């Protein structure tokens, strides 16, 4: 007689002649003990006779292990011949045998690693290309809808527009102002440190003024909007897509572009220049505070230097705002339309919208800086 015992309460397999006596709890709770036990047991050869009277509890996990160990076919043969088994155990074993002997899915074909890497690279490049095509297409669609609406003022969605302006513009004022105020102060400190070595602290004012009028005001406001609003657009439109609300709009003969996208794009195009103005003012205030407190430049002198800065620098900065706003809004909305059903997809596309719009804002700003430098503005 061969005997193996895991511990006092656990599972046993014993042989009495050609009979196999099982004992203990053949349940999920003892799965690991069972598995270890069966690994060291040779599979009995020849005619199989099982004795399950010692088994206190049997569930699908235990039955699966038994079926896998003995082989589903053999267990089935024994089950057919056996007359003593309790009906509920017989039903359980039969159900599990049927499940275990299902045809397994054909394993996926393995490709060489180099080929997989190459295919991955190809797929990425193709998806980038498709993405660019899609973005161009979407921009075209937005412009087309915009111009077709221009001639039909009775279809302007004023309520939605005003609502979006409040959401994306008005409610963003505190965070934009605070952030640019702090950056203005930091730039002033930086200027004071570097320029102070040449005894040219007074030019700190020029540094802050030029930086904020031309670049920082609009770029910071646009990046904040990309993080705050592009993500919101994607999540809003994406959940509507997941909930089939966009399809419902279409079947009602309504155009989601007109109802959802245009008010958002217009709201952003209208509010970003205003937010840029707020950002510039707050940045200058931050600079002025540092100039006053740590460089001893009185406010009067600060404003006199500011007044000498040509107006075109302000216009260069402000002129970029509608373009940035358009790009941020379009990317946010487009990613919303790309959402596919699941909660995870909403998250992925929201992330993607923020990353893309920040990238585009900085890229466009760099291109614009080059352009304005060449033109000499």
């Amino acid at each position, binding site marked *: 007689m061969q005997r193996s015992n895991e511990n006092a309460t656990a599972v046993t397999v014993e042989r009495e002649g050609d009979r196999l006596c099982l004992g203990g709890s053949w349940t999920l709770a003892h799965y690991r003990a069972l598995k270890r036990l069966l690994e060291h047991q040779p599979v009995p050869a020849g005619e199989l006779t099982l004795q399950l009277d010692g088994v206190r509890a049997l569930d699908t996990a235990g039955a699966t292990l038994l079926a896998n160990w003995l082989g589903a076919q053999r267990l089935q043969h024994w089950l057919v011949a056996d007359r003593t088994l309790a009906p*509920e155990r017989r039903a359980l074993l039969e159900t599990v045998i049927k499940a275990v002997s299902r045809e397994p*899915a054909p394993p996926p074909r393995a490709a060489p690693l180099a080929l997989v890497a190459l295919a991955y690279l190809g797929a990425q490049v193709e998806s980038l290309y498709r993405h660019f095509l899609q973005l161009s297409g979407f921009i075209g669609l937005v412009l087309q809808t915009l111009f077709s609406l221009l001639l039909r003022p009775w279809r302007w969605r004023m309520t939605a527009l005003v609502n979006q302006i409040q959401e994306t513009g008005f409610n963003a004022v505190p965070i934009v102002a605070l952030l640019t105020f702090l950056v203005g102060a930091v730039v002033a400190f930086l200027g004071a440190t570097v320029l102070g070595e040449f005894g040219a602290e007074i030019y700190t004012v020029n540094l802050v003024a030029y930086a904020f009028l031309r670049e920082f005001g609009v770029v910071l406001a646009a990046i904040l909007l990309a993080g705050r609003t592009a993500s919101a657009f994607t999540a809003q439109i994406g959940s509507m897509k997941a909930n089939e609300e966009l399809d419902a709009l279409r079947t009602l003969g309504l155009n989601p572009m007109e109802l959802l996208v245009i008010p958002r794009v217009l709201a952003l195009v209208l509010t970003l220049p205003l937010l840029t103005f707020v950002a510039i003012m707050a940045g200058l205030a931050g600079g002025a505070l540092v100039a006053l407190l740590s460089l001893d430049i009185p406010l009067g002198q600060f404003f006199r230097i500011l007044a000498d800065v040509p107006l075109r620098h302000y216009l260069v900065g402000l002129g970029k705002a509608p373009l940035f706003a358009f790009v941020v809004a379009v990317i946010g909305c487009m990613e919303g339309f790309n959402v596919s059903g699941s909660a995870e997809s909403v998250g992925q596309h929201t992330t993607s919208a923020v990353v893309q719009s920040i990238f585009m804002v900085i890229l466009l700003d760099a291109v614009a800086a080059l352009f304005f430098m060449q033109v000499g503005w």
Partner: protein
Amino acid sequence: MAADGKQTALIEVRGLCNRFGSNSVHENLDLALYPGEILGVVGGSGSGKSVLLRSIVGLNRPSGGEVRLFGENLLALSGRKRSQLEQRLGVLFQGGALFSSLTVRENVALPLMEHAGLGRADAEALAEMKLALTGLAAHAGDLYPASLSGGMVKRAALARALALDPDVLFLDEPTAGLDPIGAADFDQLLLTLRNALRVAVFMVTHDLDSLWTVCDRIAVLSQKRVLVADTPERVAQHEDEWVQAYFNGPRGRAAHTAARET
């Protein structure tokens, strides 16, 4: 009121009250679920069937009364004991509620890894068996929930509910949204599993065919309590107007005839 009063109930609901603001859904509701039975719960829309299910599994704290699972009050237990008790319950939500970021097989393997302490390979092998048990095709395990059909979602969600071999299975409208053939298959699957696993089933449903085919008892929720809970034949005899309209209306009669013929 039970078919066999001697057995101790797995679930006992006593004097349950549920109020949302000024709107009262349940008042002094009593209900019991016995081992190995399939209990169908019916009621008009808004009669609080889903709220009852959520109260029993502990997702909703009742305003009054008590729910005892296996003789214990779930909401009064400490976190660890509560988790142990919850592992004896399996819930199939109406929309499936499969985790969309995991494949079907990982969905089923998750509770096995978290609670039964299995390694990934063991858990996935066992999960594959559960998927086969609920009749899913072999390739479905690798799919994500988003690419499943309605019937496959129900089966995959059932496999997850059965992952830990629960003592009680809760089903919220399991056949809603399935075609008649799929719904009939699901009924047969439920009977097979009940007979094989000896699991008690608490099923909220509107499907008259299901009620006649699989239920041992039916509880009717009406007037904020359980109006009657008894065998389908006896419930159908109840004199209440709503019960009569439900079971002996044109659809109810057709379903009954169909169930008797099979």
